[in-house]
């Protein structure tokens, strides 16, 4: 007989270690390793391309990225930054960027780069295909980012000064456009006219108000009544008690009279104040009229032949680009390398943290405490990056050298400003004497940046001073440019100076109007070198731009003969138009003001004179006949009468 029932073998007890997980663990490790070996570098490259393109505003390409885990190193090759102006070329191409990080810092969750190198710098290299350029940011969107807002702030001010068709307007005046016809169509009220009408209404109301107030003021008869009251008192009595009582009464009565006179005095000074205010307001009508003339000049596109205006209109776009560029990069630097917080900012942060406590916290938010860094690193710290480029490295490489020192996310902790210096020559691109120095001092509460850049020579090709849409085209076909830029920024203030020079200038110009083209040809033919100096001072929300150029001066002189008479005539027409419009209102205002001075003003002066006279009489009545030597006289003095 066979035993068919199976003998149940006791299952082997498994140990505490999951030995079965060995293979999956190895597979997982292999997968992770494979990802980092095969894909991580290319994903990082794409990430850098995306991020850099967003910041720069035009396509940025990276040829190759190589990272090493054990060496904690990073290498990037063939970095191409598209030129926003000419997308078919690069602004700069960098052959290699190499940096090695410190493991000690990485283990602390920080990135500290001991040494980095930037090699084979090549400006203006040709791209394989034109790079994508982001469209300009839309006008002030309250939700727009910090950079867009900063750029918008600058452009709002420059655009207010800019006339896109400045030379086109000059051409129109040369062609003989008469502003008289355009003025007929202007239906809108002038500022001066509106102000005069408002002033006139106010003055009429004031006159009525003052007349009413004067009526309510004490009249001479009131003082005469007081005088009668005093006379009724017996101040010559020999009874000392009665005399003292009467004198006290007299003093009270006189005090009452003085209060009334004081009220009249106060009213008179208030009226004088009103008259002064309205006289000034009437005088400001002249300024408003001048402003109206200027506005109309702009509205009717009547240009000015002031050399400064010529220079401003020709070079404002160039200055604007440099200004927005400086603003943008300084803003980025301040965002990622923030200056030390002021006590007010620290207090605000603490208050915000307290407010947060009232709202239920999200899971895991908590409060993160910062302890003193005794042996540590900022979140990011690039100690030193050496820039070097030799002519023989690649075809378009130049000879350049420089260094970037102490780029960090915590400048206040590090206590050292960031310094950048680059100098070089790029003979293939005809770019000589490039020198760039910048110091970004964010170590203290107030951020300070200073930039000094200069270039000995660079080629200028097809640079237009006028917009493409302008009916008059003016620009440089070819020239050798040189220039310098110095900028000092502290908190919200800016001081910038730009000097540019274009030698061997060959101009490119065109105009539909024959006389304009003739003038341009004559003027530009005698200018071998164009110089431009621009100064920007003030704060970012309100700055002044002062642009001077010999081109502006020469063009102004050139158009002077053609335009002076016509512009003078046009301006005279505007003056007449404005004066005719506001003349009647101005006269009404003057009449109303005169009415206020002669009516209530005169009435109040007369009333005051009469009251003073009555008061003197009352005081006389309060003087006892015995004189100052009598006992009553002594008492009077004692009562202060």
């Amino acid at each position, binding site marked *: 007989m066979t035993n068919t029932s199976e003998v149940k073998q006791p299952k082997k*007890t*498994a*140990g*505490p*270690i*999951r030995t079965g*997980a060995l293979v999956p*663990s190895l597979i997982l490790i292999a997968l992770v390793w494979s990802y980092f070996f095969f894909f991580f570098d290319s994903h990082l490259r794409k990430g850098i391309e995306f991020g850099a393109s967003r910041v720069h505003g035009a396509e940025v390409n990276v040829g190759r990225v190589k990272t090493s885990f054990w060496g904690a190193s990073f290498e990037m090759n063939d970095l191409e930054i598209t030129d926003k102006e000419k997308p078919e070329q690069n602004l700069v191409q960098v052959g290699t960027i190499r940096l090695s990080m410190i493991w*000690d810092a990485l*283990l*602390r*969750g920080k990135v500290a780069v001991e040494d980095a190198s930037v090699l084979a710098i090549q400006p203006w290299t040709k791209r394989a295909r034109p790079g994508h350029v982001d469209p300009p940011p839309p006008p002030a969107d309250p939700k727009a980012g910090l950079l867009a807002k900063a750029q918008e702030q600058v452009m709002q001010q420059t655009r207010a000064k800019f006339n896109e068709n400045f030379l086109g307007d000059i051409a129109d005046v040369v062609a003989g456009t008469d502003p008289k016809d355009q003025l007929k169509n202007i239906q809108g009220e002038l500022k001066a006219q509106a102000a005069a009408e408002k002033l006139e209404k106010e003055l009429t109301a004031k006159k009525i108000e003052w007349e009413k107030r004067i009526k309510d003021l004490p009249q001479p008869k009131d003082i005469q009544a007081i005088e009668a009251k005093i006379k009724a008192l017996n101040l010559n009595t020999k009874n000392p008690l009665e005399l003292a009582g009467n004198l006290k009464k007299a003093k009270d009565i006189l005090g009452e009279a003085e209060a009334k006179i004081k009220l009249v005095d106060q009213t008179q000074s208030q009226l004088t104040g009103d008259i002064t205010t309205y006289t000034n307001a009437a005088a400001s009508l002249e300024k408003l009229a001048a402003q109206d003339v200027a506005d109309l000049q702009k509205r009717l596109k009547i240009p000015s032949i002031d050399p400064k205006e010529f220079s401003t209109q020709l070079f404002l776009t160039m200055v604007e680009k440099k200004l927005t560029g400086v603003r943008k990069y300084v803003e980025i630097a301040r965002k990622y390398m923030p200056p030390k917080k002021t006590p007010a900012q620290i207090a605000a942060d603490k208050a915000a943290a307290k407010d947060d406590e009232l709202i239920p*916290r999200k*899971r*895991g*938010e*908590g*409060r*993160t*405490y*910062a*302890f*003193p*860094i*005794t*042996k*540590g690193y900022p979140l990011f710290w690039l100690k030193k990056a050496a820039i070097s480029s030799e002519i023989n490295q690649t075809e378009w490489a130049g000879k350049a050298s420089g260094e970037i020192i102490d780029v960090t996310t915590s400048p206040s902790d590090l206590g050292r400003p960031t310094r950048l210096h680059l100098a070089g020559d790029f003979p293939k691109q005809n770019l000589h004497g490039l020198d760039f120095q910048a110091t970004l001092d964010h170590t203290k509460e107030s951020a300070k940046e200073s930039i000094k850049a200069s270039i000995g020579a660079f080629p200028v090709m097809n640079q237009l001073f006028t917009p493409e849409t302008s009916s008059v085209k003016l620009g440089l076909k070819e020239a050798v440019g040189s220039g310098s830029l110095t900028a000092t920024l502290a908190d919200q203030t800016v001081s910038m100076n730009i000097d540019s020079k274009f030698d061997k200038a060959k101009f490119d110009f065109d105009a539909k109007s024959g006389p304009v083209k003739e003038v341009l040809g004559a003027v530009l033919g005698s200018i071998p070198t164009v110089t431009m100096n621009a100064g920007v001072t003030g704060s970012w929300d309100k700055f002044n731009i002062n642009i001077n150029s010999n081109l502006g001066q020469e063009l102004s002189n050139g158009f002077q003969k053609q335009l002076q008479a016509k512009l003078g005539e046009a301006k005279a027409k505007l003056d007449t138009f404005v004066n005719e419009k506001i003349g009647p209102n101005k006269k009404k205002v003057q009449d109303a003001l005169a009415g206020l001075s002669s009516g209530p003003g005169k009435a109040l002066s007369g009333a005051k004179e009469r009251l003073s006279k009555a008061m003197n009489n009352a005081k006389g009545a309060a003087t006892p006949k015995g004189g100052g030597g009598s006992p009553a006289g002594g008492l009077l003095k004692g009562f202060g009468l």
Partner: protein
Amino acid sequence: MTILFKQLFSLLKLLNSETGQNQIAAGIAAGFILGMTPAFSLQTLIVFLCLFVFRIQMGMAFLACFFFKFIAWILDPAFHAVGSAVLEANALHGLWTTLYNMPIIPLTRFNNSIVMGSGIVAILLAPVIFFVSRSAVVKYRETVVARFKETKVWKMMKATSFYGWYVTYDKHFGS
């Protein structure tokens, strides 16, 4: 997802078996630590590594983590208070400064009030949770499972051929 379901089925099997109470209790304790920790940090990674290397019931750990996450959310203000008190203690300032300046340690995010508070609570209570849940599992088997095995429904089911197939399948392919 398949792994998760597999883990949950194996949890049910283990829970109703006669062994593995330590694995289940360790799973609950590990899930407790994971659930209490507010965000991904170095200590979370260490717990995951333990789950992977040691025979801790993963299904139970994930289930417990899910459950304790809700409790932790309610307890966050208390964790914040504990963490803040510890991090602000003058006597410990030197220790925190040293740890803050050491490599690797800052990756634990110990300087966050909730991470510190929940970490302290989780480490202190994890052994308690382990022993309590182990005795709860034993109690469950003694009362619920034993009683269920005595029911007619279970006996009827055990007598079916389907159950026989299941046992055979489990013998060959079950973990």
